[in-house]
């Protein structure tokens, strides 16, 4: 054995030759540079092309402010609802056995597999003025399509798997023993939930919240269909960017885009930070399980 290993190179048998490694790393980095770094830098250079004054003027424009306000409002409604749904769904799936559990798991993913434009169309067909339900609502003075409620609904639809998807595996891996222990020690349902369940899933919860928020603010397709593009009323930031661009107001378009880009960067940073916190929780679970075994 010893004499044999002396003759062979030190590289273990499973490692790739250096040429392959360098090639793969180069390709990966080149892709990131081409599709991520250059566009991001372009957004900011274009946004600042006419100077800082023009940049802030573009953002301070009443229509821009209306778009920002609508985007924030939409996220403020959609995100808490999704987190509530995410907790309820993951709780149900991780803790109970019920008929249709697999179906529910599959259905949660539908917004991921359906094109957002089709999702938007679906709401128009269901709630538009010419549809029975939409017509009835319109008769009672409730407008959904081409109004803010439609935008919120479409946003909820496209984001709703995000929190649930994140929470289900965490709930499952944490298990219910600690919750049972809390109950035996005399805790009520809400005490158990806030003192034991939430702290155990909090990093996953925040992670899901960040993802959900990013998607809610950045959604274009579904929202575009239901919005009607009424300036100053039903334009979210992504829609407003498109309008500016079509009006050849490139600097303004990029100025608003830069806000969304900053959101993306902040999301990425939060995701990175939270992702590092989620994994230790899972790790600790495994360690505990190992000790137990």
């Amino acid at each position: 054995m010893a004499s044999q290993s002396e003759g062979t190179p030190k590289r273990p048998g499973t490692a790739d030759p250096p040429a392959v490694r360098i090639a793969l790393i180069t390709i990966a980095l080149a892709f990131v540079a081409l599709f991520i770094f250059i566009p991001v830098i372009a957004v900011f250079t274009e946004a600042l092309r006419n100077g800082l004054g023009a940049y802030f003027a573009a953002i301070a424009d009443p229509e821009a402010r209306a778009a920002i306000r609508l985007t924030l409002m939409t996220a403020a409604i959609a995100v808490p609802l999704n987190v509530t749904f995410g907790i309820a769904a993951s709780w149900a799936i991780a803790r109970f056995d019920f008929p249709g559990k697999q179906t529910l798991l599959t259905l949660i993913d539908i917004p991921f597999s359906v094109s957002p434009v089709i999702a938007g169309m679906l709401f128009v067909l269901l709630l538009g003025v010419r549809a029975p339900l939409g017509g009835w609502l319109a008769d009672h003075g409730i407008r959904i399509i081409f109004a803010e409620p439609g935008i919120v609904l479409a946003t909820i639809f496209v984001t709703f798997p995000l929190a649930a998807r994140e929470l289900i595996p965490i709930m499952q891996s944490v298990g219910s023993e600690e919750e049972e222990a809390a109950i035996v020690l005399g805790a009520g349902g809400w005490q158990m939930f806030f003192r034991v369940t939430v702290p155990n899933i909090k990093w996953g919860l925040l992670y899901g919240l960040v993802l959900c928020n990013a998607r809610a603010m950045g959604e274009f397709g579904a929202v575009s269909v239901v919005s009607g593009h009424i300036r100053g009323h039903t334009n979210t930031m992504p829609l407003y960017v498109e309008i500016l661009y079509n009006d050849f107001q490139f600097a303004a378009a990029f100025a608003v885009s830069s806000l969304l880009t900053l959101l993306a960067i902040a999301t990425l940073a939060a995701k990175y930070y939270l992702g590092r916190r989620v994994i230790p929780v899972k790790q600790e679970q495994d360690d505990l399980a190992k000790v137990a075994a």
Partner: protein
Amino acid sequence: MSIDLRNISKRFGDFVAVDNINLRIETGELVALLGLSGSGKTTLLRIIAGLETPDTGEVLFHGEDASAVSVRKRKVGFVFQHYALFRHMTVFENVAFGMRVLPRRERPAEAEVARRVHELLKLVQLDFLADRYPSQLSGGQRQRVALARTLAVEPKVLLLDEPFGALDAKVRQELRRWLRRLHDEIKITSVFVTHDQEEALELANRIVVMNQGRIEQIGSAEEVYHHPANAFVYNFLGNVNLFHGRIENGRVFLGDTAVELENTHTHAHPDENGKAVLYVRPHLLEIVLKPNGKQTFPATVKSINPAGPQVKVELVAEWGDMVQVEISHERYEVLRLENGAHVFLQPKEQKLFVYQI
């Protein structure tokens, strides 16, 4: 507080976990539920705690029906097999939990909580770890924190699910003795589940041997070990040799050698002929070099292991069954056994156990 279980049954789908169990546990007793996994012992414990609802039957605490009492009001302490410590709380906060979730009127003041927590941590000899998190503790320490946390709510009944299952042998020994002493001190009615017969025999006042959701025998360590109610109990408590034989005219035949049924613990009917299983513990067989007029069976030595307090000899009986025998080192010196030696096995009187099948 005494516990009465009356006609308790519980199914999970088609699986009968607990099958019509009746059991009374007296105040201050330390009872072991002993059985293999799947015997229903943990389910029974969870039913006592209120974590599972029985399909039929009732649980009485101190003579009163506890079915309508919710888990959180039952005043039971439950120590989970994997301890279920709150991983995001320090040891101190874990122990304080039961006091912190009390309704505001009953909740002790912070100073009182701290005093109680430290008192309990001293009781389990872990006061110096109050600021640690569960992940920073060893298995044995986690176990004791779990116990302190449970005792903090002053339970009337202490229930422990495989309390030493996840610990290594040495720690297990220590904790076992420690728990015994603790029980002697605080005299709380306790029930623990175990699959380890040695643990049950050493720790419990009374042992409930369970098998397939039913109780096979209830008794003291002495009773279940020396007077097993049936073959299962005998087989389960300690090592046994199992021989297949047949009953003919009041005698059990093993190969060509017959044993008088009168000389055995038996549930077999002497008038019914048929197959029988015969059990005998390794230390209740003697090896002799010549038949000496008493009951003996021919056998051949296969292997000898002299390491340990007793010499373990493995033999093949004349009728083909493998036989394990434990003899003293002194006896081993006298016999001068070697592999392949032809010897005779002589049961020490009255200790054969015959079961008709």
